């Protein structure tokens, strides 16, 4: 392990401890999106659920198996997804999240899994609607 491995930014520490937007969503099927990516055997598994109304995400929740950066990133994404158009993932830039969390370079792979999970979540709904 690297010497820096347990040196986390305030943002990561806060989200790891309190896990804002963690949980599940109870919603009618028509309003619900859900999706996930990764595999715990490989160290990361992230899942998102969202409630959509009028094409917008009104509520978003995550569940995550992974390092503190993964948990923090999933929490951040769930929080910032709320209010956005349901089909939009363009705002989600793993590099920007990495910078925001002060994550070391070798964590980028893990953050891509978070992005994949969110895209899977909104893709599922897109699939369901079409």
């Amino acid at each position, binding site marked *: 392990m690297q010497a820096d491995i347990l040196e986390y930014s305030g943002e990561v520490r806060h989200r790891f401890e309190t896990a*804002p937007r963690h949980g599940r969503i109870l919603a009618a099927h028509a309003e619900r999106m859900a999706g996930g990516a990764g595999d715990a*055997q490989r160290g990361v598994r992230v*899942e998102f659920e969202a409630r959509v109304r009028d094409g917008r995400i009104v509520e978003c929740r995550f569940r995550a*198996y992974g390092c503190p950066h993964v948990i923090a990133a999933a929490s951040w994404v769930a929080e910032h997804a709320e209010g956005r158009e349901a089909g939009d993932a363009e705002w989600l830039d793993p590099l920007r999240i990495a910078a925001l969390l002060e994550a070391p370079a*070798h964590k980028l792979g893990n953050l891509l899994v978070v992005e994949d999970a969110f895209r899977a979540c909104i893709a599922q709904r897109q699939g369901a609607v079409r």
Partner: protein
Amino acid sequence: MTEISTPIYFDYAATTPVDERVVRCMVECLGRGGCFANPASSSHAPGRAARGRVEAARREVAALVGAGPTEIIWTSGATESNNLAIKGAAHFHADRGRHIVTSRTEHKAVLDTCRQLEKEGWQVSYVTPGAGGITTVAEIEPALRKDTVLVSVMYVNNEIGTINDVAPIGRLCRERGVLFHVDAAQAAGKIPVDVDALCADLLSVSAHKVYGPKGAGALYLRGSPRSRLEPLIHGGGHEWGMRSGTLATHQIAGMGEAFRIAVLEQDAEAERLRALRERLWSGLVGLGGVHLNGDAERRVAGMLNVSFEGVEGESLLFALRDLALSSGSACTSASREASYVLRALGREDQLAQSSLRFSLGRFSTVEEVDYAVRLVREQVDRLRALGPGGGASQQEAM
């Protein structure tokens, strides 16, 4: 009740604090008023006094492993001892054959040394330990060849604390005329070590695992100085020409004192630590989805390596940052790699990745163990709840 100050140290297998008695002994060899002269300075009394300390320490270390004093060669630690033993014997006996047998769960100081010899043209067989991670004659014997010159098996594994069945391996080696090296860095001071009972020709120990200083170690070489090794470090001819360099009196005296104390106290200490470890284990096992790594019986008293279902290792470590413990071996954690020891034991990736090594020691207390149990239970529960298998969210539960 003892005051608990965090982080609580649960990493005695990585290194130990130096015992106060040892610190005193070291300090006596440092400053102006002390025994600071060069032990090689035979031309004056202060030099000879330093040499006296070095030789007294040699007797203590020899006593702990059942050797004669001249069979002890000072080194900078067990890493160097392992290198000197394996490369030194391989190079010295190269004409007798170029095959070495060792196990896949050795310390990197053995494995990387063997890899280096492979680059130089030696062949190395790496056997997989048997059940519970224990290496026995059953694994070693089939790997022996006519041109095998050396077998190297650790006494106690540094990640899981299991005790290998080294004495029968030693007897086999002796029958076959093969040199036998034992890395006893994690055994010395924890269980009795006797070079004759083990039929060991070479045996490595380190001071800092036994409440002595880091940077001090020794290699036992049977029959030294008549029997020889090719040195790693040349210059000046110290240690019968097998390890040159100014002897660090304070380090050596500290190691001697640490080993003297270990001889006296190790039995009582082991008993106390075994009780603490059992208390820890029964506290953790109640969580469910907790797996003990390595044989449950054949293990040193203070070490417990456990894997947790459904929690990721790094997050677990961070959540438990009030406990100073390691995942995988600290000695190898300068490099980033999942535990090759647990993989060799056949642990699936998730469990290998979520392992924690609790190692207890001389200053561990019941209160510390109980604190750890509470914290681990709380945090494992929390992290499991955060995961995909987890139930209701924290927020919704409120």
